[in-house]
């Protein structure tokens, strides 16, 4: 469903979109059922002359089942949704594949600083490539990132990746993504960070291997 509005550009975007659709179908069913019953009852039992209300307490067993049966059905739906959520969360957040590349993301009021590991694949070496507001990544490589903040809370949000992670000063938070589509997409800050909260747009540029190599060479000269 989400993909109609925002392209999928990471390996786990499909998982999250699938879960979204599953929840949409499940709660959509309940929503239509409940609203349908509600409006039908409003219409069916509108006041008519000579027809009095009925005396129903809702305490007899055959009345209580109007609550208890849907109640068990809700529990069943909850179980399905919980299992699906746990599965997707594990795939996205906990089962982290081995890193092909590393990148450090430092948020501050009001900019993103990206430290690309460079040719040696290690952060903190002289060939690191530092950019502001533009992250360059290569298609189909697993990136592990270290996310930090210099001042207040920020949140690294890349809608096309379905990735969002708060940056907390004093902590280094790790995470990963694997780009699956070439292009240039928005990065937003998703946690209010002061006056320039709207003024820290970043971009992620997803390149093929050749393009990425060319970009790295251009940075070094």
């Amino acid at each position, binding site marked *: *469903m*989400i993909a109609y*509005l*925002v392209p999928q550009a990471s390996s786990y975007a499909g998982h*999250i979109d699938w*879960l*979204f659709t599953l*929840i*949409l179908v*499940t709660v959509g069913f*309940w929503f239509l059922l*409940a*609203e349908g019953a*509600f*409006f039908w*009852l*409003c219409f069916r*039992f*509108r*006041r008519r002359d000579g027809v*009095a*209300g*009925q*005396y*129903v307490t*809702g*305490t007899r067993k055959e009345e209580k089942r109007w*609550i208890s049966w*849907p109640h068990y059905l*809700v529990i069943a739906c*909850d179980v399905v*949704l*919980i299992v699906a*959520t746990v599965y997707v*969360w594990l795939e996205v*957040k*906990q089962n982290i594949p081995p890193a092909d590349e590393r990148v450090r993301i430092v948020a501050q009021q009001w900019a993103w600083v990206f430290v690309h590991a460079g040719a040696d694949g290690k952060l903190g070496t002289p060939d690191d490539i530092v950019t502001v507001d533009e992250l360059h990544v290569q298609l189909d490589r697993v990136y592990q990132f270290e996310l930090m903040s210099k001042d*207040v*809370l920020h*949140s690294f*949000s890349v*809608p096309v990746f379905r*990735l*969002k992670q*708060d*940056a*907390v*000063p*004093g*902590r280094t*938070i790790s995470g990963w993504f694997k780009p699956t589509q070439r292009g240039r997409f928005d990065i937003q*800050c*998703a946690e*209010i*960070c*002061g006056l*320039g*909260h*709207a*003024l820290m747009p970043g971009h992620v540029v997803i390149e093929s291997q050749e393009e990425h190599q060319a970009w790295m060479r251009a940075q070094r000269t």
Partner: protein
Amino acid sequence: MDAGPAHVSGTAGHAPAHPEPMSFWRKYVFSTDHKMIGMQYMFTGIVMGLLGGLMAYAFRMQLTFPGEAVPGVGVVTPNLYNALVTNHGSIMIFWFAMPVLIAGFGNFLIPLMIGCDDMAFPRINRLSYQIFFLSAVVILVSLVVPGGGFGGAWTAYPPLSASAAYNHTPLGAPLWLLAVALEFVAFLLGGINFVTTVMNARAPGMGIWEIPIVVWMIIVASILFMASVGPLIAGAVLLLLDQVVGTQFFDPRAGGDPLLWQHLFWFFGHPEVYVVLLPALGMTAEVMAVFARKKLFAYKIILYSVFATGVLSFVVWAHHQFVAGIDPRMAHVFTVTTLLISIPIAEVTFAYIATLWGASIEFRTPMLWALSFVAEFMIGGVTGIFLGASATDIYLHDSYFVVAHFHYTFFPIAVIGFFTGFTYWFPKMFGRMMNETLGKIHFWGTIIAVNFVFIPMFITGIAGDHRRIYTYQLFSQLATDGLGRLRLVSTLGLIVMLLFQLVFVVNLIVSLVAGRRAERNPWRANTLEWVAPSPPPHGNFAEMPTVYRGPYEYSVPGRREDYWPQNVPA
């Protein structure tokens, strides 16, 4: 006289616990009468609610027409935008929903509905309102001090909120926090009063299962509030020290931890949702039973579900923090507890819908509001599942999907709940009937417009609009015509909705001055407040009522009347 709970002021032919005040100041300003204090809370809340609505107008216009001067407001700078968003949220929850729903209706209704002459602690009650009034003054002052109002969102996450070096509001931030802290003190005093009163001062014969459900729900809400607010008050003290004294409880540069605040805040913040939900849910039930001429379906199941919701609400708070940097394994626990809350809430909803079965529904204005509460709140309820599920929350967190979701809970709670209660109890409060035609125009105008405000936000949220961003011009994927049109629909919906509130104001004034006189029990309802004259005098009842049955005996077979007031002997 059967053995009921102790009664504060004796029985028939009693003298009021305190004499009736006569002077203007004693009667309207420094009153200890629960009805007057309820009105004070309610009208202060209405004024604050209108201000909160106008703030929404200002920032929605900026979002729709970025950088252009907003008619009546001027150019909305980033500073002002953040302050408006922050204070819109704070005011709507702390200075509109809470005072109107809990303190306003709670004060007015509890003594009348349980059949006593006043609150257990009338002077504490007065003090509660005075502190609340002070807090309202402080929050309004915080908007106009040099540097501007606080703009760190109603959640006030540090380090942004903790230091003027980050938030650039050296006076606005501490004043905002002070106002919130004062407001909590006021509601702690009120909560103690409500619980004590209902425990000790019920009319003879009113056992705990004969208490009207709205009173039950206000009591549960008060207990939830008092039990959850402690950690936040502690957190607020620490944050105030950080802001003013220069301690660094939440600043990692000296070993503090920003996440600590989030836990303290949301441990309060989530039960707070139910604190304001329950009174609205209770009023909806009262109104539905009366206008459906039906006994409330499964009163006890509703109550047990509400208790379960209350208990569960204490263990769901970290669902606000799935992407905040907590240990990923914790997310599973909070996904489970959050989704479990759907079970009792769904049961309550089913019971409300089932109440309509076999009814004889009269679509008067209060009933339209009550029914719309159920219909609209369901949207808020089901969309919460997307956010309670940790994995989808990664994508939707802090997007407009969240804004749309919680407005579909808070709008029914605060606005629809208020209008449900106000239009229903207006005859009791003021002794006059409201105009039905104006009431219906106001209802349809508001309810149609509000869906135009918030349904587009679900879509813009899914498309990637994040919250609290004062312009999307810098984001190529968001600055599109399609999304711009959706934002415009929201804003137009808001303007139409705000204009329709003028109908309400006109109706209020016209009905207060020239409305048809209301008899004691214009809706033919069962609960005790309708036994008192309209409006009830000081001391409420000429003769203290005795209770013989539950509050929802409508359409009982074999009776000529289709209602059976609680105080009428068999």
